[in-house]
């Protein structure tokens, strides 16, 4: 008995000690800045100067800020296009690869390859692909006798262009789908076959319901990530043409580090946080209606 309590005491002491770096990291780099950011958002503050308290002025100013609304709508537009498209493409390709394909690892590598391209190299490559005169897309369209486009250089096509570009990197989502598909119990398919169901019924009554948790996971991760898009706007379009690709985080960055309006930018950050929280909450609430969990009540 005393030996056990000695062991317990040792575990407690070491347990706390070994958790210290993680706890410190949380306090210094997450909780602390979070509180600081909330406080900063209530101030007028230039970098290097002293913040002065202005109450909720930054938040009320947001309402009349045309660019704020523009950035919110541009980001929403982008997310509504990019996330579903990536989900559909990734799911379709994962379904194909789940059909006992020869050379599975080669196919998987091919579709995964684009996700490996570092973000900035990706952006530089796509600037050239979108080049209206000699870029890949217009060259092919011209050769096929089809009408060409101005891609990222036209207000109307800028965001759809960036959606195409982001869809190219569907590989991560696809690999997760593929793992999910391989985890669907075989006996369920057999049950449908015995009842005389074809591939279509197998898809609707087994694959799709069993995959809803994976689809939901990819949806949440996709929306939260896509809402914070930055690189394309910074390097490719600088928010243009005519602010059509003024993505939210890029606008925030510009306010904070180009215009040195740190208080206002902090308010922007908190509004983003709220938007993401609300959207995530709604997705989770809605999930109950369509996401299937094996053990009812476990979630």
């Amino acid at each position, binding site marked *: 008995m005393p030996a056990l309590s000695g062991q317990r005491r*040792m575990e*407690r002491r070491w*347990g*706390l000690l*070994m*958790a210290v770096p*993680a*706890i*410190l*990291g*949380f306090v*210094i780099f*997450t909780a602390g*800045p*979070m509180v*600081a*950011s909330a406080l900063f958002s209530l101030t007028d503050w230039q*970098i290097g100067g002293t913040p002065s308290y202005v109450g909720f002025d930054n938040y009320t100013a947001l309402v009349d800020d045309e660019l704020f609304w523009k950035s919110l709508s541009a980001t929403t537009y982008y997310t509504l296009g990019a996330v579903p498209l990536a989900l559909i493409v990734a799911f*379709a*390709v994962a379904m*194909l690869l789940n*059909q006992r*394909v020869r050379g599975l690892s080669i196919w998987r590598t*091919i*579709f*995964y*390859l684009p996700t*490996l391209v*570092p*973000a*900035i*190299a990706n*952006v*530089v*490559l796509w600037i*050239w692909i979108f080049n209206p*005169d*000699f870029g*890949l897309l217009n060259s092919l369209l011209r050769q096929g006798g089809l009408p060409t486009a101005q891609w990222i250089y036209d207000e109307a096509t800028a965001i759809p262009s960036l959606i195409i570009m982001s869809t190219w990197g569907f590989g991560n989502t696809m*690999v*997760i789908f593929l*793992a*999910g598909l391989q985890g669907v119990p075989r006996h369920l398919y057999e049950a449908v076959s015995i009842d*005389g169901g074809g591939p279509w019924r197998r898809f609707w009554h087994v694959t799709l319901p069993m995959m809803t*948790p*994976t689809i939901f*996971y990819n949806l949440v991760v996709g929306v939260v990530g896509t*809402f914070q898009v*930055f690189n394309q706007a*910074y*390097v490719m379009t600088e928010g243009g043409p005519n602010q059509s690709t003024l993505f939210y*985080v890029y606008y*925030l960055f510009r306010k*904070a580090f180009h215009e040195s309006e*740190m208080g206002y930018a*902090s308010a922007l*950050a908190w509004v*983003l*946080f709220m938007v993401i*929280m609300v959207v995530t909450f709604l997705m989770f609430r809605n999930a109950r209606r369509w996401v299937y969990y094996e053990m009812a009540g476990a979630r």
Partner: protein
Amino acid sequence: MTAVAAPEKPRTGRVAPTAGLRRPRRFGKALLYLALVAGAVPTLLPFVWLVRSALMQDAQMFTAPPEWIPAPFQWSNFTEALTAQPFWLYFVNTVVIAVISVLGTVLTCSIAAFSFSRLRWRGRNVVFAVLLSGVMLPYAVTLIPTFAMWQQLGALDSIIPLTVPSWFAGAGGGVFNVFLLRQFFLTIPFELDEAAYIDGASPWRVFWTVVMPLSRPAIVVVTIFTFIGTWNDFLGPLLYLTDEDKYTLSLGLASFQSVFITQWGYLMAASAAVIAPIIALFFFLQRYFIEGITLTGIKN
């Protein structure tokens, strides 16, 4: 159900496959591969475009029906692009930051994961849940105060802001690694720890000589993803590095792009050079990549 299905039995294809049945099967297979090729072509085309442009002379690039085979192969695009700016230096800078970050992340995240999975102390699960909630926070929220903090500490224009956080269990989004490692540690039999404790080992010894050696797959996954994350990071270096001698590859490439804005041969050569190491890494460690993403996805 069975009453309905029974009379149908002879009609469904549970009889041995006949020649008549095999044909639609083979047709289906052909369709499947056709669909795969249809997907693979647009996926690979940008890579082809990248390589072909990287090796082409400008004159040939600006022809009306596009040409696909460089003639002659303009290898000098690479040498000229990579010497126009000190990409070799950027490469070294990036590797230094990546290695320090990987070491810090793996070490401190493993230590934390060990505490949260294999040592019993009061409040453990509550603390872990609070830490994990940090993953949900958008990086934009912590961006400005963190920047202000480093500025106050006089650490701007150095690699400190880019590397030090990783020595606090990844800090912020890095907590996800703690979660991943913890999940893995939980699958290792606890009897091993108990046996070591009976032999008088300390928790640190159990961590270092029992748990860590058995966790190589999870450690490799964390290593790969931290490495790639640092390699690809753009916003961090953009905020914290101003001296060109300290630039990372991402930052260097972005500044190169803004200078050589229409020199497509150079731009593509430089991009290809930035992409190549990651692709090479992938081919060496392919198995771990796929396992890693699967691990992150399955965790739900």
